[in-house]
């Protein structure tokens, strides 16, 4: 059994796995989180994705110790951090609006966490200056140390906030909407840059975003949240290709819905059975089938295999056409993508439709 007196310096910055066990949070009677479980492996880059009000920021703040859960525990490695204060947790937190200290220079902002340490663990000023320089170079802001935050652009402030969080050699890096306040172009550049930085430093990192493109592009794994619950956890491919719930289908990418009836585990559109996709099963009874536009295959002519349908709308969109296809027998129009050339598709044309990788979920 190891003792607790091990010097902290040996473990600082150690990439840390993170375990969230049954975290719930009530704000004056309304539940923001209902019993969330999540495991994040050491060195992983994970996105918490969801609409506003889904509880993702609350979860991030609970991990940091900025809020306390109504029940549940947060483990850093094997240590229960639930009763640790935010100061003791040693997390790097990047705030949505950066929360830079505007009365301090960039260098003083970055050095803040080092200077706040108790004397025994505080580096001397020369060492602090050296580390600040290294961090400024790391975030590509060498030479900006003497400026004030008000003299920087949004993207530069964001990087200062990141350098400040990294300065304390955190066990976990937490970012709340890190690119939310930036314009689209800077956002994309910083996204790529953050990924490269993560690959170099290897911090266990969680970031909150409401932008699915950002989450799918950047993260090793994506946690989709809604209404205080986790809807699905998986790689970006899993999340996009095999959504586990109607919410994920709707929230990530696009999806059309078709009312179906499940009999003996097989979904029927009218009296025509369709393949149920992989691994998801809805109980017998009325259900809804979800399918992505690119997975709707349209063939000309009513004959042959496929679900009979008619073309309801046609829109040219760049190199392809977007079709609205009305499925016969049910009141549903399905979005589909077809090449710009080729098939002679006019409004009113009869077509046959094939559905790839649909999801079927019980209605209601």
């Amino acid at each position, binding site marked *: 059994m190891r003792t607790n007196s091990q010097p902290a310096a040996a473990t600082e910055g150690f990439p840390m796995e993170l375990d969230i066990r049954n975290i719930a949070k009530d704000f004056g009677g309304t539940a923001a989180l209902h019993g969330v479980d999540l495991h994040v492996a050491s060195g992983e880059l994970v996105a918490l994705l969801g609409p506003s009000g889904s509880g993702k920021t609350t979860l991030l703040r609970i991990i940091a110790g*900025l809020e306390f859960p109504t029940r549940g525990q947060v483990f850093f490695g094997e240590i229960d951090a639930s009763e640790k204060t*935010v100061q003791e947790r040693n997390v790097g937190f990047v705030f949505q609006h950066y929360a830079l200290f505007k009365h301090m220079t960039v260098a003083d902002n970055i050095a803040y966490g080092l200077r706040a340490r108790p004397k025994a663990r505080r580096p001397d000023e020369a060492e602090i200056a050296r580390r600040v320089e290294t961090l400024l170079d790391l975030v590509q802001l060498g030479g900006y140390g003497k400026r004030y935050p008000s003299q920087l652009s949004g993207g530069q402030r964001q990087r200062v906030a990141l350098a400040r969080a990294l300065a304390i050699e955190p066990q976990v890096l937490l970012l709340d909407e890190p690119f939310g306040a930036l314009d689209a172009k800077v956002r994309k550049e910083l996204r790529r840059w953050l990924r490269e930085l993560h690959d170099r430093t290897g911090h266990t990192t969680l970031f909150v975003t409401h932008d699915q493109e950002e989450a799918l592009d950047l993260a090793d794994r994506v946690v989709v949240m809604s209404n205080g619950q986790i809807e699905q956890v998986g790689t970006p491919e899993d999340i996009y290709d095999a959504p586990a719930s109607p919410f994920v289908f709707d929230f990530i990418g696009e999806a059309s819905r078709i009312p179906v009836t499940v009999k003996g585990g097989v979904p029927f559109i009218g009296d025509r059975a369709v393949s149920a996709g992989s691994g998801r099963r809805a109980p017998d009874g009325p259900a809804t089938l979800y399918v992505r536009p690119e997975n709707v295959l349209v063939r000309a002519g009513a004959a042959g295999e496929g679900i009979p349908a008619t073309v309801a709308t046609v829109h040219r969109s760049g190199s392809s056409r977007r079709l609205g296809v009305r499925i016969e027998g049910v009141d549903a129009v399905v979005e589909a993508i077809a090449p710009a050339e080729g098939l002679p598709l006019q409004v009113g044309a009869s077509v046959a439709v094939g559905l790839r990788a649909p999801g079927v979920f019980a209605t209601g």
Partner: protein
Amino acid sequence: MAIRFVQPSVIPGFRLALGFTLAYLALIVLLPLGALVFRASELGLSEIVSLALDERTFKALEISFVTAFLAALFNVPFGLLVAWVLVRYDFPGRRLLDAMIDLPFALPTAVAGIALTALYAPNGWIGSYAAMLGLKIAFTPVGIWIALVFVSLPFIVRTVQPVLAEVDREVEEAAATLGASRLKAVWSVILPVLTPAILTGFALAFARSVGEYGSVIFIAGNIPYVSEIAPLLIVIKLEEYDYAGATAIATIMLAISFVMLLVINLIQGWARRRFGRV
């Protein structure tokens, strides 16, 4: 292209409104203040200085400035404490307490003066206890200081309060995630942001205290060389028909008012440049 005095606008009445404003300003404020400056210039700088260096005048100015400074200084921590409690904590009676802060603004100074004297005179509610300890409050500079603390407290509270209310909680949280204790976070992150407001409040409190008359003269005892304040000396000189003496003291005090106004504007300009929008 010539720079226009006023940008064109479809809204009517500019000439009338500005004309009336300037005329009224000139008549009520500029003309009388100009008269003082005119009389002072008739005296000449050396005469003003020699009048001010008259021992009794010099002592009165010194008492006014020192007590005003000490009152404003005391009101910095006091006002900060009150602003903090009013902004950050919710407790029964908070609104009442908040409304009470403006009492010194609303209560006529003469009323405050006799009330404070009733409290702190050697036979007063508090003064009698102090007297038992051998302390004298009223009729000493301490009494003046108490009256000035009373009249100038709202300046600090009311300049700090709105700034404190707007401090971004995320900044405090950022300090905490970086390992700063609560005390360190307040000291290193909140206090510096409040500094311009504190300095402005201090300057306003000081300016008000230096010129304060009504609340002080009852409790001061007005003993020459001990507890006689400069504004009172102006009144005394006037009663003695010593217009030159009154003008000299008033000129010095007016100059102080201008300096304080300038200081306040400089502080606010500096704060805007330094803290910009982040």
